Every structure is written in C-alpha cells, then in structure tokens.
C-alpha cells in the first residue's frame, strides 16, 4: 500500500502545489486523482516516484519510507506513463518497450521477447515492432507508453493524464483496454486526470483535489456521485450526476416483457395478442435480431413493411449494461420502450421508461450500488 502522509509541496517560487495531503492508496486497485487544472495532481503523482521531493511529510510504500531505497531502484519498480507517451523517437517500438528490462540488466533477447509479449497484451499488432514512434497514431503511441511502463512487471503504475491528448473514441478504447488489463494484472494504479467522467469510469477510489492542493473528497465513485462532500465537489461533478450514478446500478433486476416481441414471419393472431402489454410491437428478423417497432393494427392488417417500422434506439444487454444504458435506450426509443438483447444481439424482451423508473427507485431504496456495473 502507498500511504501519503501529511505531504506538503512548496516550490522554490513559493507556490504551494500540495497542502497537507494524506491519502491511503489501496493495493491492486485504480486510485484516481482528479481536480481542476493546477490543483496539484501531477505534483502529487511525481512525489510518489520522487520526481518531486515533498517539502514536508512522507510517503510510505508497504510501510517503508520511499526515501530509504535508491531513487532509481524505486522508479524501476513503478511504471510511469505520461500524457504524450514520451516515447524515444530513435528507438523502435520493441526497444522502447524493452527499456526498463534492459535497465534491470536483462539480455537484449529476453527483454525483446518480453516486449513482444506486452505488445499483444496492450492490443498492439506485433507487426509494429520494428516501426519507429513517428509511424504510429497518437492512440497507438499511448499503448506503447503503457506497455513500456508494464514491461518489467512493476507492482505500481503511475499514470499522468495518459489519455488526455487523444480523441474521444480512441480514449474510450484505451480506457476499456486499461480496465481489461487491470482485471488480468491487478496492479496498484495511481491515475491522474482532470476529466471527472474518466475518473468515475476508471476509479475504484477517487480523490477529488481542490485548487491549492487540498483533498476535497476521497471515496468510491458511486459514493462521490450520491453524496458529494461539499459544493465544490458537487459543482465539479457536473449537472447530471443523478443520471451518471445510474451507471453503478446493474440492469439485472429489470423485468422484461417478451410478449411484444414478434418475429417477422409470425402469424396474424400472434401479432394481435402481443399488443396487450405494450402499445407497439418489436419486430425481429427470423434470427431474433430486432428490426424496429410497428403499431399492432398496422401489423395485423397484413403485410409487415420493414421500411415503415420505427427505429428501436440503442439496445442494452441485461446484466452487462447498467440502468443508465437501459434508461438511455428507452429515452432514445420513439416508443419510450428500451430493447433488451443478449450478447449475440437477439431481442430478449422490452421494458418501458416507467418500469426502469421503478427499478431505479427500488435500487436507490436498497442503497449500495454495484460498482461493477459501471463497466
């Protein structure tokens, strides 16, 4: 465990970047430091690998003051990922990743074999191994940065806004990849970001810092969203934290209606009977994949005209997606009903906004959200 104990950092010019910060960073989990620009996130992170020395206080790693071991030994035991990846442009991708193993005295061959392994782990095609950084996209470079940090299998990973410089789609991919890697490797990760959504998505624990380097709140993301400690945190979380909090409730409890789901080749009586539970029927193809909504009368009148069906919005996967995704699906659907599908995309039922609303109330009444549903 990393323990930040009453740490203050005063730069030579008098700026107090971090002020009396205490934090217990749990093992094998992602702890996110979040806050507005200039609030001392980077300074805090860099004090953990002694790129910055605290003016007061101490930092303990597994109970031992980090100043007790040689600084480069400490740093080699902590992966370090920075915003623009910071790759070595004169080295190939493979040799970039092999840097720390080489520093640790591994043979070139062994270090490169390990680097190739890591390329696969972070989702990089090994055909890129002999390329140079300038030949890679920003997102790929960032993956190399992560692979390089993981190369010597350090127990701790320090990440300073690693995904801030890439576009939103690529960023989402990188975030999902990090969560996947973390599921496999279980590192102790300290992750800095100014993006509260990223913090909520990635963090097991989230530390919100306020300007002047003081801790505003330290809590799991769901708790942060439900009980922000003060107006600053509430303001920082943004307007729709109620909706975002739904990310933490699983959609497993939703009661799905199957009657309004009809296959395109169903007989007319089936079409007529389905209309009792819902105002519209969800028509699927013969595989069970949803095609769109149709009014029961129109459908019963005979020909199902594929082109005249209403779009069904974005479906959700019960158990995998959260209540937020389900509600989003219902809001997007012209009929007000969300479509539930299985992993293969076959419709397994439909659910109305009203029913989702009831599930939300029930979940709130029960209290603790399920942190896992966030993903």
């Amino acid at each position, binding site marked *: 465990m990393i323990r930040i104990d009453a740490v203050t950092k005063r730069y030579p010019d008098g700026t107090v970047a971090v002020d009396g910060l205490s934090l217990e960073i749990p093992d094998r989990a992602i702890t996110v430091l979040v806050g507005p620009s200039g609030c001392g996130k980077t300074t805090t992170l860099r004090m953990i690998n002694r790129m910055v020395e605290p003016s007061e206080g101490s930092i303990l790693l597994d109970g031992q003051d980090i100043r007790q071991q040689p600084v480069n*030994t400490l*740093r080699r035991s902590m992966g370090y990922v920075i915003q623009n990846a910071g790759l*070595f442009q004169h080295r190939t991708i493979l040799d970039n990743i092999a840097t*720390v193993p080489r*520093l640790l005295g591994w043979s070139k061959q062994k270090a490169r074999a390990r680097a190739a392994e890591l390329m696969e782990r972070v989702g990089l095609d090994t055909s890129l191994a002999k390329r*140079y*950084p300038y030949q890679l996209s920003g997102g790929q470079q960032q993956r190399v940065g992560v692979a390089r940090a993981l190369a010597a299998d350090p127990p701790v990973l320090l990440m300073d806004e690693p995904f801030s410089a890439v576009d939103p789609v690529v960023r989402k991919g990188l975030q999902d990849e990090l969560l996947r890697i973390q599921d496999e490797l279980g590192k102790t990760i300290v992750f800095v970001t100014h993006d509260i959504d990223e913090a909520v998505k990635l963090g097991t624990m989230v530390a919100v810092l306020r300007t002047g380097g003081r801790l505003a709140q330290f809590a799991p993301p769901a708790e942060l969203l439900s009980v922000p400690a003060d107006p600053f945190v509430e303001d920082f979380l943004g307007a729709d934290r109620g909706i975002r909090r739904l990310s933490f409730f699983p959609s497993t409890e939703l009661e799905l209606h199957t009657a309004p789901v009809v296959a395109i080749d169903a007989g007319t009586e089936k079409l007529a009977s389905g209309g009792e539970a819902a105002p519209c029927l969800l028509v699927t193809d013969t595989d069970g994949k949803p095609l769109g909504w149709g009014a029961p009368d129109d459908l019963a009148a005979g020909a199902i005209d594929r082109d005249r069906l209403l779009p069904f919005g974005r479906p959700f996967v019960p158990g995998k997606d959260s209540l937020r995704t389900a509600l989003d699906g219902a809001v997007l659907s012209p009929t007000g009903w969300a479509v539930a599908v299985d992993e293969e995309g076959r419709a397994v039922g439909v659910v109305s906004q009203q029913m989702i609303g009831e599930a939300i109330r029930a979940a709130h009444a029960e209290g603790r959200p399920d942190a896992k549903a966030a993903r």
Partner: protein
Amino acid sequence: MNVLNFVHAFLSDSSHWHGYDGIPTRVGEHLHYTLQALAIAAAIALPVGLVTGHTVRGGNVLALVATAGRALPSFGLLVLLFIWIGFGLLPVMIPLVALAVPPILVTTFEAIRSVDPSPVDAARGMGMSETRVLFQVEIPVALPLILSGLLTAAIQIVSTATIAAYVSLGGLGRYIIDGLYQKNYEKVVGGATLVAGMALATLAVFWLVSRLTVSPGVRRSS
C-alpha cells in the same frame, strides 16, 4: 582568360602530382591540420556543450564565449602568435581551434537543450541515471544538430587552414600564396579549387556519418 582552363591546366600537369609540392602531399597536410584542429575543438566544445545543454545551466556565459570566439580575426591571431611563439604548428592550431569551438559549442548546447522534454521526463521516471539520460535519450535525438555544428566547424577549418602557408607551413594555402607571389594564376586558381573540393568532400563525409549514426526514427520525425 578562363578559370576553368586554369583549373584544367593545373590539374592535368603531371608534375603537380608528385614531390613535396605535389597535390597529394599538400592535400595530406591540409587534411592533417584540419583533422587535428577539429579533434581538439571537439574535445573542448562537445563535453562543455553536452553538459551545459543537459543541465540547462551556463547558457549566457556560453553565448558570450561563442560571440567572443567568432569576433577573433584568425589571420591577425596567427600573425600575433607567430611573432610571440615563433615557427611551428601551434600558432596555426590556436586560431583554427578558436574558430571551430564556437559553432560546436553553441550548436551542441542548443541541440541538447531543445530535446523534447517529455521523453527525458519519461526516462528519468523509469529510473535512468543522468548519464544514461544524456547518452541514451538526449544525444541520439540531438545528433543531427550536433553533427551540423561539427560540419560548420569542419568547413570553416578547411577554408581557413590555408593561413598555415603564411607561416611557411604546407597545406593547400601554399599554392595560393606561392602562386600570388609568382604571379602564377593557374596555381592560385588550382589551389582554391582544391580547397573548395575538400570542403565538398567534408560535406560528403558528414552526410555519410549522419546516415550511419542517426536513427531512422530521428531522421524522419524531425
């Protein structure tokens, strides 16, 4: 009167190709002065430039030294040193080294100082020692610029080493000085052409060295 005719006449005269005043001997002497001056200048300027660039300290002092060095008149210095020290290679080497130090020093300092700070930060954060940071991160990236400083210095030495002839030493300057004295313009033009040829050869050598030592990742991305 055609310069090309002079050049042709000078180079095709077989008597110019052997003996103590032959082209191979004079080119060899010129090369010797050049390499020696460049080596001494590099041995002084490279370490200072690398260390000051790495620590980003002493930039102002450096700029001052460089300006002062540039303002030194090589020929004047040579005459002064010749009177003071007397005959020998030393009065020639000092002005040549003084000429070559500023471009090497300033370019090396700038080259290291302007290396993108984020890989350097990453390298330190991964636990590289300062020496490793300099040699494994900063120098490989700064190399094209460092080489360009050395090239500038080398070319200046090649063209200025002709002054050695004024103090009775050899080198290609011999042809120019003797030719002027003897009013043998064929010799003057021939000597000047050989100096220009050596400058071009220097260019070619540096191009080759940079092909061999600069990583393709650096060549393309900058």
